[in-house]
């Protein structure tokens, strides 16, 4: 999930505050597919990703593009507005009750020696790795991917060699949103969700991206692992409700001493 955010930020230096809410929309789409059409979230996630891709492109084209040159603060506020709208439209549409998608996979477990492995979590984990790899390949091995990275690196340079930078931005934003949509659909059988979940998801993914390093895919992945491990350890040794304390403390320390993140390349 943080992979999508890091792509959006890394390419366009736009901070997407609506990230978690987009993810919640991915979850609700999966929920709709599962309840209305009986499609398992593990099959419908590409559709969710495609829908979120469209949403991402629309938001970028219609809202972010006109102020792409404006200071960061304005973009933060804009995305905050988008987040408020997305979250509360979800609240209006789906109500405040927590929802959960039922998938037959979620009830299966495998015995591996002394461990029980939750099949649903395993599948989610594997798909997440595959998606990250695919995104990496896309960014580093295809022309479009190279153009995205070039636009991120040097806006004017990319313009000079004839890139349609605005289109690249829209694509990148869309792909970022699609990643979140896929992630949302994939975790929907594991994680119960409700519209306000979006906010905490946004905050968590910011943690991950900052800790891992802005604009670095590997960083996002490792940051994600680090944050989850820190939170689980905190939950085991102290109270479960205190677990977020660790990720926020980690965030402050990283912000102060290594603001580019553990794997970030440049100073902010």
């Amino acid at each position, binding site marked *: 999930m943080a992979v999508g955010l890091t792509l959006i930020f890394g390419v366009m230096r736009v901070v997407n505050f609506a990230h978690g809410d987009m993810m919640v929309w991915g979850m609700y789409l999966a929920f709709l597919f599962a309840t209305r059409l009986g499609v398992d979230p593990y099959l419908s996630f590409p559709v969710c990703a495609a829908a979120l891709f469209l949403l991402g492109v629309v938001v970028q084209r219609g*809202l972010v593009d006109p102020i792409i040159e404006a200071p960061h603060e304005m973009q933060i*506020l804009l995305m*905050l507005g988008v987040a408020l*709208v997305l*979250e509360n439209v979800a609240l209006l549409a789906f109500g405040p009750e927590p929802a959960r998608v039922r998938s037959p996979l979620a009830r299966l477990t495998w015995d591996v020696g002394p461990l029980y492995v939750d099949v649903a979590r395993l599948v989610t984990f594997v798909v997440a790795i595959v998606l990250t790899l695919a995104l990496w390949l896309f960014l580093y091995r295809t022309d479009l991917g190279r153009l995205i990275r070039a636009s991120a690196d040097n806006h004017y340079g990319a313009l000079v060699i004839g890139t349609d930078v605005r289109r690249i931005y829209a694509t990148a934003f869309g792909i970022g949103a699609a990643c979140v949509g896929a992630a949302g659909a994939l975790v929907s059988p594991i994680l119960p969700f409700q519209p306000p979940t979006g906010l905490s998801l946004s*905050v968590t993914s910011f943690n991950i991206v900052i800790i891992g390093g802005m604009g670095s895919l590997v960083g996002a992945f490792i940051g994600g692992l680090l944050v989850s491990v820190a939170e689980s350890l905190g939950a085991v040794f102290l109270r479960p*409700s205190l677990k977020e304390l660790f990720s*926020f403390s980690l965030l402050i320390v990283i912000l102060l001493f290594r*603001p580019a993140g553990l794997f970030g390349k440049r100073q*902010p």
Partner: protein
Amino acid sequence: MKWAMAVALAVLLALPAVLSGYAVTIFVLIFFYAFLSQAWNIVGGYAGQLSAGHAAFVGVGGYTAALLFERGITPWIGMFVGGALAAVLGAIVGYLGFRFGLRGFYFVLLTVAFAEICRILATNVDAVGGAVGLYITFTGDPRQFQFQDQRAYYYIALALMLLATGVAALIERRRFGIYLTAIREDETACEALGVDVFRYKLLAMVVSSFLAGLGGTFYAFQNFSLQPGAVFGIPLSVEIVIRPIIGGAGTLLGPILGSFILTPLGEVSRSYFGQSGLHGAHLIVYGVLLISVVLFMPQGAYPFLRRLLKRP
């Protein structure tokens, strides 16, 4: 302009005599949020340091006053103790943020992280009420900052709003205010000219958090309860940030105008849609307004209106 202000003030002073109880409550909220927004405006508007964690200061102020009240110290004193503690927290956040040169988005995240840590701590430390929060026993004693009559809160909230606006006006007229605006416009150039950027940003943060801390006491003793999620949570920070932005950040009247626009809108749509079970509608309104302000009048409503009025 001075005349208009005097008339507006006279009207506000006389209003409670003719308003219904519900309308008075709404005005209390308008003034209270205008006050908090004005406090935010000092650091967020003038100095351009976007803090998204001002709820933390409100929470610290409110909790301090409420805890002192339980030990028999009147909130009239507790208010200032709370403000002072909030200012200390503001100084810590500001010191770390500014000393390590965090700008823009990174500073936003730092303030959010601090506010969230406060929220998590308040939720988990049972000595301050834990997840249930604190409840204040109602005595109706004015010496304990408790009033039977909402109109008393009306005047206190009005006074707070005027206080914060007075402080902002004072800052605006002095060299300090000019430094802050200059820092917002171009921090590097300021440093090059020998302005002690760090000192002024820190000072702005301290003043702002002190005021927000005072507001915490008002919140606690108007609602007679404090919940960690409500006073430390991100939604309150958003409420505080959004008003000056829509009204016009870095202007004296912007936060007030923003609060006069948003608070009634929020309250009315909340009660109107809330009745039909449509929660969250007021936040959609906020979101749409925020998006349109950023896109169409990034300076905010007040500068926009002023330009309209000045045009012959």
